[in-house]
């Protein structure tokens, strides 16, 4: 194995990649919002605006065989991981060409090829699952990392505590990534947690923990490199609290009565794309042509995905009860 790479190499290629991934997610989410208002996407839709630096900072650090468990706000994670945008959007349309065969929708994106274990609509529901994946790897001596993304709201659930305890007790290779965006749907963190310094909770379970500025994609990547390396080397869990902010509402149908517009605007000025792009421009690491090209590439990919989803087909109703039970193992 290579030497521990705990510092991101900020080559032009790499920074452009980071920027592009964040922009790609942002534009994709905007398109999803548009499609939702046109009733092409239905049910619930949770968008990632403002939090892109976390998925973009952490996921590329993982290996292909590593495993990812995410939440219902997982479009960005799926895209960065390499789940094709075509199948992601088709899934959100409910077409059978979607990554979950159209059966799951926005909150249940799964992809075996990229070891993407969903997409979960139960807050905190993914943590025991992640612990289990890591347990399986631990018992089979796989030296894999399971990255588990969850919001700070999950911290209130019993399953959070049970999972951290188990992971620490049994020494399981889970990277817990808490995306602390300060609101669990409409409830501010300070109104739901007696201890709002979340990384301290992990520390109480004797899990190595740190907090990082989730609006700084480079800081997130650096922390992720440290964390993933530690998990893979020690086989023990690690807890990364990424402090971020959710620029859009919890979901599409949210009047945001619980927060101040001024607060949102304040955070908008320091959101990850604005920050990173500003920094790159100030350091002349990015040129206007690069941005034009990125936007064009992203727009083309999105248009392609929309066409794919539009052209997708509905699973025949006769097949309704498929995928309830599996075929007997050989």
């Amino acid at each position, binding site marked *: 194995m290579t030497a521990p790479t705990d510092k991101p190499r900020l080559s032009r290629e790499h920074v452009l990649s980071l920027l592009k991934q964040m922009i790609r997610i942002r534009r994709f989410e905007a398109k999803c919002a548009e499609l939702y208002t046109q009733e092409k996407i239905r049910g619930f839709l949770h968008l990632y605006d403002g939090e892109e630096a976390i998925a973009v900072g952490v996921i590329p650090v993982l290996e292909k065989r590593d495993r990812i468990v995410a939440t219902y706000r997982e479009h960005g994670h799926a895209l960065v991981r390499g789940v094709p945008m075509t199948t992601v959007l088709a899934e959100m349309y409910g077409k059978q060409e979607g990554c979950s065969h159209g059966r799951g929708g926005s909150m249940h994106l799964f992809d075996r090829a990229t070891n993407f274990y969903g997409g979960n609509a139960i807050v905190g529901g993914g943590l025991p*699952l992640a612990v289990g994946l890591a347990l399986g790897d631990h018992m089979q001596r796989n030296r894999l990392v399971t990255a588990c993304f969850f919001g700070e709201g999950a911290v209130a659930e019993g399953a959070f505590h049970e999972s951290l305890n188990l992971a620490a007790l049994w020494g399981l290779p889970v990277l817990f990534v808490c995306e602390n965006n300060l609101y669990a749907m409409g409830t501010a963190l300070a109104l739901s947690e007696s201890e709002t310094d979340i990384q301290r909770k992990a520390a109480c379970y004797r899990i190595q923990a740190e907090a990082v500025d989730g609006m700084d994609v480079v800081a997130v990547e650096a922390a992720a490199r440290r964390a993933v390396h530690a998990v893979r080397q020690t086989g023990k869990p690690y807890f990364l609290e990424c402090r971020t902010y959710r620029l859009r509402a919890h979901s599409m149908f949210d009047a945001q009565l619980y927060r101040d517009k001024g607060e949102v605007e304040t955070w908008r000025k320091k959101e990850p794309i604005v920050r990173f792009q500003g920094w790159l421009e100030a350091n002349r690491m990015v040129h206007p042509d690069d941005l034009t090209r990125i936007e064009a590439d992203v727009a083309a990919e999105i248009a392609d995905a929309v066409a794919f989803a539009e052209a997708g087909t509905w699973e025949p109703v006769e097949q309704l009860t498929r995928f309830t*039970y599996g075929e007997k193992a050989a």
Partner: protein
Amino acid sequence: MTTPEAKTQAVELTYREAVREAIRDALKRDERVFLMGEDVGRYGGCYAVSKGLLGEFGPERIRDTPLSESGFTGAGIGAAMAGMRPIVELMTVNFSLLALDQILNTAATVRHMSGNQFGVPLVIRMATGAGRQLAAQHSHSLEGWYAHIPGIKVLAPATLEDARGMLWTALQDPDPVLIFENIMLYNMSGRLPTDAGPVDIDKAVVRRLGRDISLITYGGSLWKTLDAATTLAAKGIDAEVIDLRSLRPLDDATIMMSVAKTRHVIIIDEGWRSGSLAAEIGMRIIEQAFWSLDAPVARVCSEEVPVPYPSHLENAALPQASKIVAAAMAALGRA
């Protein structure tokens, strides 16, 4: 050792020991199998099912867990998805409620939500039932609730053969299988052939052939029902007793064949009456064997009360052989 004359040797053992043998056998055959649950290791299991296994297989494969039903059930699900074959032991169905979210929202639904990309080949074992004066919070029979859920399978081994044989078949299944062991059966002893092996997990079995009335039941109630059949025989009523064995899927064919023959049916179910598994089976009989019926479908279930502590009240709350006999007589117009 087998002598040339003996066709099969049999051994005297208890239901508990039969389950232990099933677990030991699975652990030996398949290194992916491991047992996980509260007090399964050092304590030897709340009902002494796993006694001695820690010493034999070590702490990795006989894993004591903290009191974290949701956490370790979810962990079992994840481990199964990662290639292992875990047996999660939830101490009793009463505590399984803490893991209900993981069972229903993860185990039962992952295959569907992922469009068949991921399955959960997990076995969950739980003790169930009442009769030991453990009072309201420790006496539930919620097999019917679980049998309601598409995506999982639900078993109720009532005999030594099934206690010994269902586990391996369940471990081969690509989907989550829940096995319910009634607490009143653990001490039951009998003879089991030494070469007893895996059995099917989707068929009901006729435990006693009869002509006059079908008594359909499962789990701990099987033996009360067989007792009732003996009593009925003395009264000239020839009862057929069916052991469901699999509660999801239900073996409709066996049930309907019996009802078509006897035209009278009682369903015995230790769950509470309202919305019980008996209600489901009764409805299926109406749907599929209506024209065979010569009397209304009847059931003997637990009374609508949390299970009380004192034995006389507990007995009155639960199905008993005497209630089954009375119901059968009434159905045949011999009340």
